[in-house]
C-alpha cells in the first residue's frame, strides 16, 4: 500500500492516542519516512529544544513502499532531535516492524510529551493504547520482547524496544526491533527512554491495499527484483558474505581507520572479516556464521546470524549467549575491532550481541572505546578512572567489560555512554575525538577516500556513511569507478549520492538496492504505488528538498557552517602507509564547490533562491 493517509499521534503526557489525517500536501513534497517525518518534526518542534525534554518529539515513520511487495520494502525510520549531535536524527531500520505498522494502517506514529510512568504502546490495527511498562522497565530488549510476546500471546507481534543503556542515558542508544535490527545511530533510543516509552508493540492484519496502479506496480516490482537477482552483488555477494566482505577490501587499500583513526591499516583485519566468519573454528568445527537472513520483503538477505564459541572467555558460564543471534556487520566489526585494535572474532560477536540486547549503536560504542584507549595511552585516563580496567589497545577483555558496563550504565560505562566527543572533552583532550558534529565516524578513512571526507563533513546527522556513500563509486566502482585519491568531481558526486539516498530512504526502501538499482528502477515502483507522477527527476528533486530541510532544521537548532569540518587528525596528520601515504583529507578543495552546487552561499547558508525553489 502506498500512503494509508493516516497517522497516530500519541500524547505521552496525557496518555492519549489519536488518529489524524496525513498531510498529503507535505507527502507530495517529501514522499514519506525520512523526508516526511522530518517535515513534521521541523514544523512541530522548536529546533532549539532540549532533545531529552518533553518538548522534543519522536516519530516512527514508514515510506509509501513500506509493507508492499517491493523488494526491501520493510524499512522504517525513527526521526527526532538527537541528544548526541543536537541536530536532526533519522535512524533507519529493517526487520519487520515497519511493514507491521503499515499493515496496521499507519503511515507514522508521532510521540509527544513525556509519560509520568514507564509505558509501552500497543497497536492492533485501528486500536492503540498506552499500557504500563512497569514489568519491562529495567529489562534488556530481549527480555522485554519475550515478556511482551508472552503477555499478548501473539507470536506475530512486532516489537521495537529500548534497552537498559537508553534508560541509563547512554547518548547513542538505539531503538531495537525484531531482536537484532536497529534504528541505531544518533541516540534515538535515548530520546525514546527519556519519554518513559519502553516499547512499541504492533500487530497489523489489514493487509496491502491502496496501490494507485496495481498491475503497473507488480510489473515495476518484478522488473526491479529481476535486476537485483541478476546483479552479482545483490544476487549473490551480499547474501554470502554480508557487508563484512568489505573488511579486507578497505584494509587492502589502506583506508581502514585503526587505533582511533591514527592509522589506516589493521594487521588483524583478516581474522575478523566476512571470509573469517565462514571458517570452521578449531574448538567445535563450526563457523561463526550460521546463516544469512533477510528483512521483510527483501530479496538480498545480507543479514548475519552467528554464534560465539561456547569455550570463549566472553560467554563461559553464560548459556544464554550460546545460541544464534544477530552477527557482525562491517561497521560494527570495524568499530569494535579495527578501531580498538582487537582481532578476536568471538569477542566482537559477543559485544555485538550485547549492543543488540541493550540497544547501543556499535559504531559509536566502539569508536568511543577507541578514543578511551587513546586517552588511556596518553595518560589522561588511568585505571583509577576505569575501575581497574586496562584500556590498552587490543584488549578484548576490556572491550567485553566495557560493553557490559555501558549496557547497564554502571561504573566507567557511564563515561563510555557519553560518546567520544564528550568523553574526550571531559578528560581534557578534545582533539582525540573522531567525530563530526558530535557523532562518531564509520569505517572509511577520508584520507584514503577523499569524497567520504566531504560526505562526513556535510552529513546532516554528523559523521555517517549512509548519508552519501561515495565508497560505492570511489572504491567499488558502482555505478562508475572514480579515483579515491582525487578531489576533483567529488563535490558533485557527494551531492548526487546525498540527494538520491534521501529519496530512497523516504520511499521505504533499503539503500543496498542501489548497488544494483538506479533511480530508473526505483521511480517506476513509486510512481505505480503512489498518486501523481513520480519521475526520476521528481524523486531527485524530493531528495534535494529533504537535504535542504534537514540543513535548515540544523541551522535553526544552532549549527553553524564551521561545523562542516573534520577532526584535525584527518586534516593535518597524513596517512602513514598505502596509496594515500602522505595525504590528508583535502576538504578545503571540495567544500566551496559543494556549497555552490547546493545553491548555498559561500559561508554555507541556504540562499533565499534555494529556499524558494524548494519551498523551505
Amino acid at each position: 500500500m502506498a500512503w494509508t493517509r493516516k497517522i497516530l499521534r500519541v500524547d505521552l503526557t496525557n496518555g492519549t492516542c489519536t488518529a489524524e489525517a496525513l498531510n498529503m500536501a507535505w507527502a507530495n513534497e517529501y514522499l514519506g519516512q525520512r523526508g516526511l517525518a522530518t517535515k513534521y518534526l521541523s514544523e512541530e518542534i522548536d529546533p532549539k529544544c532540549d532533545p531529552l525534554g518533553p518538548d522534543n518529539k519522536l516519530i516512527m515513520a514508514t515510506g509509501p513502499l513500506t509493507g508492499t511487495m517491493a523488494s526491501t520494502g520493510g524499512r522504517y525510520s525513527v526521526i527526532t532531535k538527537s541528544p548526541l549531535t543536537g541536530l536532526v536524527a533519522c535512524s533507519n531500520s529493517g526487520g519487520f516492524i515497519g511493514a507491521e505498522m503499515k499493515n496496521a494502517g499507519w503511515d507514522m506514529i508521532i510521540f509527544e510529551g513525556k509519560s509520568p510512568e514507564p509505558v509501552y504502546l500497543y497497536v492492533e490495527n485501528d486500536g492503540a493504547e498506552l499500557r504500563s511498562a512497569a514489568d519491562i522497565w529495567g529489562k534488556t530488549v530481549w527480555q522485554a520482547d519475550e515478556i511482551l510476546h508472552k503477555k499478548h500471546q501473539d507470536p506475530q507481534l512486532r516489537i521495537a524496544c529500548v534497552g537498559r543503556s537508553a534508560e541509563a542515558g547512554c547518548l547513542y542508544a538505539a531503538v531495537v526491533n525484531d531482536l537484532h535490527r536497529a534504528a541505531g545511530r544518533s541516540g534515538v533510543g535515548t530520546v525514546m527512554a527519556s519519554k518513559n516509552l519502553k516499547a512499541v508493540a504492533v500487530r497489523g492484519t489489514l493487509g496491502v491495499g491502496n496501490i494507485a496502479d496495481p498491475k503497473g506496480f507488480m510489473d515495476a516490482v518484478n522488473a526491479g527484483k529481476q535486476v537485483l537477482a541478476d546483479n552479482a552483488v545483490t544476487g549473490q555477494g551480499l547474501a554470502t558474505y554480508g557487508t563484512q566482505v568489505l573488511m579486507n577490501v578497505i584494509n587492502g587499500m589502506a583506508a581502514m581507520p585503526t587505533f582511533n583513526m591514527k592509522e589506516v591499516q589493521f594487521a588483524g583485519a583478516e581474522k575478523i572479516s566476512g571470509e573469517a566468519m565462514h571458517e570452521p573454528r578449531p574448538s567445535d568445527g563450526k563457523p561463526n556464521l550460521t546463516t544469512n537472513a533477510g528483512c521483510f520483503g527483501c530479496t538480498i538477505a545480507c543479514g548475519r546470524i552467528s554464534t560465539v564459541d561456547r569455550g570463549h572467555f566472553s560467554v563461559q558460564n553464560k548459556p544464554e549467549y550460546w545460541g544464534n543471534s544477530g552477527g557482525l556487520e562491517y561497521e560494527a566489526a570495524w568499530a569494535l575491532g579495527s578501531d580498538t585494535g582487537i582481532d578476536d572474532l568471538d569477542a566482537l560477536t559477543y559485544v555485538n550481541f550485547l549492543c543488540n540486547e541493550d540497544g547501543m549503536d556499535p559504531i559509536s560504542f566502539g569508536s568511543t572505546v577507541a578514543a578511551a584507549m587513546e586517552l588511556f595511552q596518553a595518560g589522561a585516563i588511568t585505571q583509577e578512572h576505569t575501575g581497574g580496567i586496562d584500556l590498552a589497545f587490543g584488549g578484548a577483555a576490556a572491550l567485553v567489560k566495557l560493553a557490559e558496563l555501558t549496557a547497564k550504565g554502571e561504573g566507567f560505562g557511564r563515561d563510555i555512554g557519553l560518546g567520544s566527543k564528550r568523553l574526550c572533552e571531559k578528560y581534557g583532550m578534545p582533539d582525540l575525538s573522531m567525530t563530526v558534529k558530535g557523532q562518531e565516524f564509520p569505517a572509511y578513512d577520508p584520507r584514503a577516500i577523499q569524497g567520504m571526507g566531504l560526505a562526513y563533513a556535510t552529513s546532516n546527522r554528523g559523521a555517517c556513511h549512509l548519508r552519501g556513500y561515495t565508497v560505492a563509486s570511489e572504491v567499488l566502482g558502482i555505478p562508475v569507478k572514480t579515483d579515491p585519491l582525487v578531489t576533483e568531481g567529488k563535490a558533485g558526486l557527494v551531492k548526487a549520492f546525498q540527494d538520491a539516498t534521501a529519496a530512497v530512504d523516504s520511499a521505504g526502501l533499503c539503500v543496498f538496492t542501489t548497488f544494483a538499482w538506479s533511480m530508473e528502477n526505483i521511480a517506476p515502483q513509486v510512481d505505480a504505488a503512489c498518486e501523481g507522477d513520480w519521475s526520476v527527476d521528481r524523486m531527485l528533486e524530493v531528495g534535494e528538498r529533504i537535504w535542504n530541510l534537514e540543513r535548515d532544521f540544523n541551522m535553526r537548532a544552532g549549527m553553524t557552517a564551521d561545523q562542516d569540518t573534520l577532526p584535525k587528525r584527518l586534516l593535518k596528520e597524513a596517512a602513514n602507509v598505502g596509496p594515500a601515504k602522505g595525504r590528508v583529507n583535502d576538504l578545503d578543495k571540495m567544500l566551496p564547490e559543494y556549497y555552490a552546487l547546493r545553491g548555498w552561499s559561500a559561508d554555507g547558508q541556504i540562499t533565499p533562491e534555494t529556499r524558494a525553489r524548494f519551498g523551505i
Partner: protein
Amino acid sequence: MRVQLELYASLMRYLPPEADRHRVRVEIPVGTTPHDLLDRYRVPREQAHLVLRNGVFLHAQERDGAVLQDGDVVAVWPPVAGG
C-alpha cells in the same frame, strides 16, 4: 621475481592448496601482467571485478599492460559491496 597474489570472497576457490588463507607467493617471469597472473590460477577475468596492485585499483584496460614488479601484491575480488 616474486609477487603475492591474494584472492578473496568467492574467488578463494581458485587458490592453490599451498595458499595461506588468502595469499600465495608466486615466482613470475619478467613482463608478467595482472591478467597473466589471474590466468595462471584460472581466475575468470570477468569475475575479477576489483583488482588492486599494492592497494591501487587497476582498471580493466590496465590489467594487460601494467607489468608486475618484484614484491608487488595483487589482490582480487569479485563484485562486492557493503556499508
